[in-house]
């Protein structure tokens, strides 16, 4: 399993764009990059997933450079409700034995 490294915490203000970068230097050819969001007292929620270049949905964008050794989750115009822990993980979608392992995550705090 490719290990991921992300900042322990980040702070920002309402209305700002927030970018959280994750390093995964040992990512394998079949690995996809997935991000989850977890609010206090809730289970994690899938946000976005990608393989290369850029993926965008109604919640966030995911930027993946050509070498795929890192990825950046971008949250546009954050609000107080975006305060949560964000987890980056990589996994081989082609292998049934591939399991979902979470790292420490990034604790994002949004201030008024």
């Amino acid at each position: 399993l490719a290990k991921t490294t992300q900042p322990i915490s980040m702070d920002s203000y309402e209305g700002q764009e927030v970018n959280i970068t994750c390093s995964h230097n040992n990512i394998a050819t079949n690995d996809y990059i997935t991000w989850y969001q977890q609010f206090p007292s809730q289970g994690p929620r899938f946000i976005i997933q990608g393989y290369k270049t850029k993926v965008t949905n109604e919640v966030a964008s995911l930027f993946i450079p050509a070498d795929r050794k890192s990825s950046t989750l971008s949250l546009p115009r954050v609000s107080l409700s975006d305060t949560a822990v964000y987890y980056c993980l990589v996994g081989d979608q082609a292998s049934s034995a591939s399991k979902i392992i979470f790292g420490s995550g990034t604790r994002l705090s949004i201030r008024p």
Partner: protein
Amino acid sequence: GAGVSQSPSNKVTEKGKDVELRCDPISGHTALYWYRQSLGQGLEFLIYFQGNSAPDKSGLPSDRFSAERTGGSVSTLTIQRTQQEDSAVYLCASSSRTGNTEAFFGQGTRLTVV
């Protein structure tokens, strides 16, 4: 149901007692996970049921922990002779197919061992 359902939502038990936690995954989902999350900590992987293959039990912390998945649907996590360090939120997740890293989580069971 539409989502992953876990029961009970809260459980207080005495040290040394056995507990059973239940997970109802999304219908048709072949992959099922159990995790443990202590206060302020990340998610600790416990066990992974991967369709018809043998479950991956590599995350179970001791032989007091076991899990079953009957008929490819409902799963039960059993903790025998509970200890205070077992106190945590136990989360279940299911995924539409094995290997898919898009999973759906339940609300968890908060276990308190007194």
